[in-house]
């Protein structure tokens, strides 16, 4: 087994969060489609969205979006702005920024 390092972890997380977001889009489109069917379906879908399970999923979704977005910016900097000269600081910055925004956002989502 090759030793795991920061760059490899970020790459895997980027892929996983990307796949997660695609799955979300499908669920989302399905939800929007159902809502438009009529008042009964509308209430059903909204009730489902308010269950604790969906709240937790929502927080996971938020984490995936934030990581994918911030890490995406990191990759752009690496490729097109000489960011590859400073891999370690950029890696840390990605995790710190993602962490702070996630915690702040998750607090609002939960309360």
């Amino acid at each position: 087994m090759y030793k795991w390092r920061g760059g490899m972890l970020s790459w895997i997380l980027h892929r996983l969060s990307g796949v997660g977001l695609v799955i979300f889009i499908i669920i989302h489109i399905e939800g929007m489609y159902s809502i438009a069917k009529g008042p009964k379906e509308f209430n059903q879908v909204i009730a489902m969205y308010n269950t604790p399970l969906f709240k937790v999923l929502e927080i996971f979704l938020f984490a995936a979006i934030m990581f994918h977005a911030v890490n995406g910016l990191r990759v752009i900097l690496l490729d097109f702005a000489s960011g590859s000269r400073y891999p370690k600081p950029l890696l840390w910055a990605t995790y710190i920024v993602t962490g702070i925004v996630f915690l702040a956002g998750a607090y609002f989502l939960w309360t």
Partner: protein
Amino acid sequence: MQVTFKIQRYNPETDSQPHWEDYQLDVEPKDRILDALLDIKRTIDGTLTFRYSCAHGVCGSDAMMINGINRLACQTLVQDLKADTIKVAPIKGMDVLKDLVTDFDPFFEHLEEVKPYLINDELPPSRERHQSIEERERFDDTTKCIMCGICTTACPSFWTNGEYIGPAAFVNAHRFIFDSRDEGAQERLEVLNDKDGVWRCHTIFNCTDACPREINVTQAIAELKNAITFT
């Protein structure tokens, strides 16, 4: 100090699968892994097979995966590893020919694809082709490559796709593309823009982390990506 060497062995004539074998060895902390391998070969098992030549980090023959990271056996000291079990395996992504010896043929084919030699149809002036200090500086980092294969075989993109041209070839393309005396940039960039070219680099940094010559491989690849995009 006593160290256990776990070495991946494979003999194509008798084995269907590689397997691990343990060797106990008394070593000095400042011994190199290459010394230990030679010691095992001389005193325990003469059939242990590996490549080396210069033994001083110049020829690039003895790249292997030592405790989970690609390194040159001749440049790695026992004390660097801070472990009493040392695992030695062949580099990943190449066919293993025997024990720690891998097949480098596809590696050198990829290297040839990027034309790692001076392209310039004009005859040189009566003396050498001149270059300013700044022009020479532009590609200094990538002149240090010894083609040991450590970067390419540390790259997950290469493990999953042997057609990937790979970081080592990119480094050597960079060395000529940014050389003011060279005129082959365009034809090389076309090769690099291929589906198995630079765009399969996902900035994982395994190559840069492992390079024994401390070349910033990822930065060199980024410069190639920029050259393709903006010229």
